[in-house]
């Protein structure tokens, strides 16, 4: 596999040239925070960012997506026939994604692409996406990726990994898709042994900068009904305002809701992100909702991430340790503390 060294200037120029043939998303400063935006002439990427406020999951899995469309005019021979809506599957690269968010795609993949179900839209868009990760020289104080099987330079799910060496990037291809990306990118030079050693040294000492952790080792051994009926849920949920901040910012939350929207004689079937925090979540057609209380919804979020997922897939927790929910929960409900309660119960 190729390993190349780019000056940051060359890297930017190479991406801009590439952006003429594929969609390239890069982190861009937007007011107080950073967001992934499509690169075009004049875009100034922010390579010094910590992480984007919104996770990059929307680039593969949009918050709202038109699945189907239909017409209702009776005279129309195609009336009432639901047809697939046109979607954009052109190749794209997500450049500068943090290892935790790339790991998150692997977690979400277990839901959208498994032996039982294959979500055609998620899978196809995921397959056309190249993930170019940027290792974390300065992890946040809330990052706990190291306790969920990753790390600031974790390679899980990445096609290319970048090491920020000050004025240069060391780019290492990790998959054939990543190899194609690097070979197709203009500029750069073969990396020397000294550069590779520098990158390895960087990995060594940033690992020590991860100060936050989450306890998960006992979750698998717990009896699901006992955890479900644990006495702490009312206290955990008390402060929750049932907003969608945690679930919408989360790179691993995958729940969706399908809605029909009709305007005149034209209809769309739209898939929207759902959130277990919200009152419409699991509301039955009968009007009954098995989770109509705040505590039940809060419990669902944590049980899904830290118990049901653990039991179903046998592959860790449904969390990549990015810490967004910890940082931005308006009432400071901290998943690390809830995991501690569950793990020790």
């Amino acid at each position, binding site marked *: 596999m190729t390993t190349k060294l780019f000056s940051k200037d060359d890297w930017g120029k190479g991406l801009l040239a590439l952006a003429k043939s594929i969609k390239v998303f890069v982190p861009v400063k*937007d*007011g*107080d*925070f950073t967001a992934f935006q499509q690169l075009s002439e004049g875009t100034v990427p922010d390579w010094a960012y*910590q992480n984007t*406020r*919104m996770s990059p999951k929307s680039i593969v899995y949009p*918050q*709202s997506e038109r699945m189907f469309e239909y017409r209702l005019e009776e005279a129309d021979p195609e009336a009432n026939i639901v047809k697939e809506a046109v979607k954009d599957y052109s190749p794209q690269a997500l450049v500068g994604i943090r290892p935790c968010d790339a790991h998150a795609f692997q977690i979400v993949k277990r839901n959208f692409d498994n032996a039982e179900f294959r979500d055609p839209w998620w899978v196809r868009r995921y397959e056309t996406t190249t993930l170019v990760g940027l290792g974390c020289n*300065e992890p*946040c*104080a*809330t990052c706990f990726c190291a306790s969920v099987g990753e790390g600031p330079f974790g390679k899980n799910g990445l096609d290319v990994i970048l090491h920020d060496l000050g004025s240069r990037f060391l780019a290492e291809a990790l998959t054939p898709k990543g190899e194609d990306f690097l070979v197709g990118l203009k500029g750069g030079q073969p990396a020397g042994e000294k550069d590779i050693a520098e990158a390895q040294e960087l990995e060594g000492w940033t690992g020590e900068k991860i100060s936050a952790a989450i306890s998960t080792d006992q979750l698998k051994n717990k009896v699901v009904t006992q955890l479900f009926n644990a006495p702490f849920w009312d*206290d955990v949920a*008390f*402060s929750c*305002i*049932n*907003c*969608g*901040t945690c679930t*919408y*910012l989360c790179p691993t939350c995958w729940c969706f*809701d399908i*809605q029909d*929207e009709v305007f005149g004689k034209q209809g769309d079937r*739209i898939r*929207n992100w759902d*959130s277990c925090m*919200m*009152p*419409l979540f699991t*509301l039955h057609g009968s009007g009954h909702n098995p989770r109509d209380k705040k505590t039940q919804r809060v419990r669902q979020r944590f049980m899904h991430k830290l118990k049901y997922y653990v039991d179903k897939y046998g592959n860790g927790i449904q969390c990549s340790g990015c810490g967004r929910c*910890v*940082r*931005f*929960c*308006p*009432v*400071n*409900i*901290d998943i*690390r*503390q809830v995991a501690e309660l569950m793990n020790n119960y």
Partner: protein
Amino acid sequence: MLEYTKKIQETAGRLLSEGKAEVFIGYAKGTVPMMNHPVVIRDPAKAGTLHWDSHCGLNLCNYLTKMKGKIGIVANGCNSRNIVTHIMENQIARDQLYIVGIPCKGMVDHRAVKRATGNRELEEVIEEGDTLVVRGRGFQEIIKKADVLQRNCAVCTHRNPVIYDEMLGPPVEEQTGIDQFKDVRTIEEMTPEKKWGFFTRTISRCIRCYACRNACPLCYCPTCFVDESRPQWVGRSNDPTDTMTFHILRAYHCAGRCTDCGACERVCPVGIPVRQFTKKLNKDALEFFSWEAGLATDQRPALDTYKPNDYNEFIR
């Protein structure tokens, strides 16, 4: 503000031990700098977890809605006004409450602190009198609290609780000569097209998480109009028309009721200045009806009363 922590702990412990309150609602110190955690305490022995500083910018009245039993609660100026509004709107009864009043010098805008330190990673923010000592990896800065107040606090004219059973300190001086609505006037002066552009840009980042609505004690409808599915009034996608509908209707539901506590703006995960919607309505309530919400329990709110001999022309 820190001096209140010990007093709150003592008071809560006493109220719970004496049975004057079955539960006590306050804040515990959060796990992240500048984020505190609302808690309910039943056991007097746990009163020591209660905390108060300049990062208590949520509105605890939010938790009172239809609560049962006797409740102790801390309240600064704006929170106390929301308690008054809650009593007036029959969401809680006065005799259920033991209100522990806190004269307030304003809450800190966590975004402003981060901005002032170049959005670097903060590990600790320590309050010392009127300053904040902000620490991160390899740096320390001292910031004046007055420079980083929440925008609603900077123009607040009701810092002292308006209703309480006990005050934890002498009243603070109220701010006078404040131009509360300068920003609203700027928008009022825009042409309709510019106004539309302004509000469209303002909400362009909205992800419809409803944190602004849910942080607001006024939003207690059993089913919000945006969550109603039979019939459905508002689309669930992130279509800008639906998003604008939500924001404008939310604001109108708060007309004549909003105390400008700023919780909506504080909690927005994408930093939308949502008070720009409600402030115009607060200005209208003040200018047309001399009305500020939640100041007294013996006065009906502007929008749920009328007099046949009203001096305004439009009523006749």
